């Protein structure tokens, strides 16, 4: 069952006007696919993740549709979405592991959460324990307080918890960001295992760390200032990126082996545009070395090769 997002627009209401955080985004995620969304601060990836499950009070659904499993998601209607949350679409929000109630034991917290979705804790307990073991945790973790667990362990608990009811779509927002590098590897691998075991049908992994995406994702979607820049299979994005932003972004990542003396890496000058009054045309224009007159008009997000979409005049 697939996810199809079509021209999704989600804006934030602020005192100074509308911040066009997500301004017309179209893509698909196939069954069994892990799609990674990469981008820097303010590109809209977190907004996208949140929009697919619950708009908070400042967000407004301005246009576009989201179809999951042939069923349109009523994004703007909080009550109607309630039925689908956690069972069909599940989100691991940013900072999830810090959001656990420190005065509740893990097991108790899970029981409460399941209870609010009308699921009996005792019924899912065997499955819960099985999955905890799968990610390398002992079932006795249910009797512990969050403070007794390390970051990596907490994140894995959150992962198990979020997928307990086998949702069709799991959205993970920066799930590996606040972790040590070894925990990061464990959690990233756990994500893939969950997909392989069929606990989750498809996954969207949102992160600023594109190298983690290379390790776990099938496709990578690169976002910039509320628009999509490029989408392609993970290997292709890394080895043969087409969009100038993607190229420069990857060129700015030092790998173990790059040395300052030998090969100076370059950053990207300038800053992303203000999303209060975004410029017409391509939003990367000011910082792009390939910018030309045509860029005054926003390039469409087009498929230029098999499974490879780019939004850039210089490419298509």
């Amino acid at each position, binding site marked *: 069952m697939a996810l199809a997002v079509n021209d999704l627009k989600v804006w934030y209401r602020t005192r100074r006007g509308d911040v066009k955080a997500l301004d017309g985004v179209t893509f698909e995620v196939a069954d069994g696919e892990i799609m990674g969304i990469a981008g*820097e*601060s303010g590109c809209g990836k977190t907004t996208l993740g949140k929009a697919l499950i619950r708009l908070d009070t400042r967000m407004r659904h301005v246009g576009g549709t989201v179809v999951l499993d042939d069923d349109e998601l009523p994004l703007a209607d909080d009550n109607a979405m309630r039925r689908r949350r956690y069972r069909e679409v599940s989100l691991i929000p940013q900072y999830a592991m810090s959001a656990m109630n420190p005065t509740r034991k893990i097991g108790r917290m899970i029981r409460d959460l399941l209870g609010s979705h009308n699921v009996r804790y005792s019924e899912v307990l065997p499955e819960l324990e099985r999955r905890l073991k799968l990610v390398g945790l002992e079932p006795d973790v249910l009797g512990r307080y969050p403070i007794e667990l390390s*970051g990596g362990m907490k994140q894995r608990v959150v992962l198990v918890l979020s997928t307990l009811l086998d949702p069709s779509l799991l959205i993970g927002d920066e799930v590996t960001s606040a972790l*040590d*590098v*070894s925990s*990061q*590897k464990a959690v*990233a*691998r756990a994500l893939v295992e969950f997909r392989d075991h069929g606990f989750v049908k498809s996954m969207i992994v949102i992160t*600023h*760390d*594109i*190298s*983690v995406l*290379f*390790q776990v994702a099938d496709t990578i979607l690169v976002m910039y200032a509320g628009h999509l820049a490029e989408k392609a299979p993970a290997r292709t994005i*890394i080895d043969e990126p087409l969009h100038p932003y993607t190229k*420069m*972004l*990857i060129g*700015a*990542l*030092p*790998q*173990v*082996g*790059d*040395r*300052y*003396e030998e090969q*100076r*890496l*370059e*950053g*990207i000058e300038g*800053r992303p545009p203000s999303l209060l009054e975004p410029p017409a045309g391509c939003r990367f224009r000011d910082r792009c070395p390939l910018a030309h007159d045509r860029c005054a008009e926003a390039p469409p997000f087009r498929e230029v090769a098999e499974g490879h979409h780019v939004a850039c005049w210089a490419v298509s």
Partner: protein
Amino acid sequence: MLTLDHLDKVYRTGTFGGSELHAVRQVSLDVQRGEVVSLIGESGSGKSTIGKMVLHLLDSSGGTITFDGRDVTRLGFRARREYYRKVQGVFQDPFSSFNPIYKVDRTFETLRRSYFPRVSAASWREKLEDALAAVTLEPDDILGKFPHQLSGGQLQRLLIARALLLDIELLVADEIISMLDASTRIDVLNLLGELKGRGLGILFVTHDLSLGNYVSDRVVILYKGRIVERGVTSAVFGDPLHPYTRDLLASVPHLDRTWEEVEAEEAERTRRLAGRCLYHEAVAAQGRSLGEEADAPDGVPNGLGLVEYSPGHFVGCFRKAADEACPGSAGAAG
């Protein structure tokens, strides 16, 4: 220039301070002029603690710190002020480093009042512009603005400029780019490289090995407060010896190889080093048994010391936690 010798930091924890927590154990390292030494470790490794002790924001519990030949382990208020003319720090969170209710200029003002009270306004302005130019910032973009009006990258560079105003010899950079976007990280890193070229010594504290590799001359790998391996960057990353270093390197997400491919590559080294402990082998080769740790090569007891495996490449006992048994020796504990 800077030498840490058997530095310790112990915290008292528990009710009435009954138990002890060794945040830093017997750490010895040095930083010379014109070089970048990376202090690499994960959370809880004590790397930030070491940084803070060097900056005298924390008191050490044992060992010595020597700077330019003088013992600076304990400093009174006046001596500390003088010390700060030569040693400065930049921290992880650029937005926390500025008082949010004031403009960023105030940071420079505080410095001026403290160290340059008799400098004229014109020459101060000139100094400022020089320092800002050194970090590639335009004075007009920066001065008169509030912290939240600038980006993280600009703020970090501002903080480096502030340190440069004092003509320092050593900069302690504590995770200075982990909160920045990928596209600006490299600019700040390049700046560090440039400063190194101008003779500044930099102690670069980080958890990210790729960053450490890019800009540093030597690396120090920390685990739970003790140094497990150190040496010239190419040696340590090219031929990692300690199990922890190898774990770290194997966990880094690369852009050209998957984790599985890395593990396959490392298989040969794993085979070669399995069940051994190079530290204790070296100790044994010097005719000492494990029980005689007290006379270990560098005089450090309890297997916390390092041996020089190859020139410039030091490694410590292969056990991970302080109370674990050493994998190399059959039977005898570390």
